[in-house]
């Protein structure tokens, strides 16, 4: 019986380790996809911003405020991205660190939303901008759910 316990224990440990690694890989992929979605949300908002400027639907000062807010969001997104890439790797970012970065990112998106509502006067353009911000917020929702172990 004593001889049998060690191989069984070793087998159980291997199975548990493989399961843990699989979860980590799945979480990492979800993080990568949400990271990519977030970046594409910023890309779309920038395209809209550029279009508003070209069509003279936004004043220069308003455009500077919106573009600056987008730059801030993208830079914080970049900081999150650099650390998130290391998640699941030896010595990489921890969930706690990433949650902290995601919280900062979330606050910057709220500011961006306010800037858009305040500075984009054209109602249709404002709706489109809010939709682009909603994509970022949706991606943040996925990130937070993965990092807090809430599933998706």
């Amino acid at each position, binding site marked *: 019986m004593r001889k049998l316990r060690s191989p069984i224990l070793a087998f159980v440990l291997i199975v548990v380790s493989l399961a843990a690694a699989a979860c980590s890989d799945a979480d990492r*992929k979800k993080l990568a996809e949400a990271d*990519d979605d977030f970046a594409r949300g910023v*890309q*779309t908002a*920038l395209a809209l911003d550029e279009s508003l400027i070209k069509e003279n639907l936004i004043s220069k000062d308003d455009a500077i405020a919106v573009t600056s807010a987008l730059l801030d969001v*993208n830079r914080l997104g970049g900081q999150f991205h650099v650390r998130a890439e290391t998640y699941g790797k030896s010595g990489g970012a921890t969930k706690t660190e990433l949650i902290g970065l995601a919280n900062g990112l979330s606050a910057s998106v709220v500011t961006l939303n306010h800037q858009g509502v305040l500075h984009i006067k054209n109602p249709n353009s404002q709706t489109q901008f809010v*939709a682009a911000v*909603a994509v970022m917020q949706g991606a943040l929702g996925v990130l937070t759910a993965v990092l807090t172990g809430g599933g998706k």
Partner: protein
Amino acid sequence: MNPATVQLLLQLIALASQLAPVVISEIEGIKAQGGKTADEIFADAGVTIAANDAKALQILADLMTPTE
């Protein structure tokens, strides 16, 4: 309507259906079918982030350039 505007409208129509995280997770599923690894997706995101940064800086530079 110029092609850039059409492209933007198409993107925004797509965005309108992405408001709920559950829809984004479906898009994730579609992307997963593409067979990309997490590292490849992170690499794509990195390229988009760098391009966003360059574009935002360019827009700001253009806005701050005095016009005649």
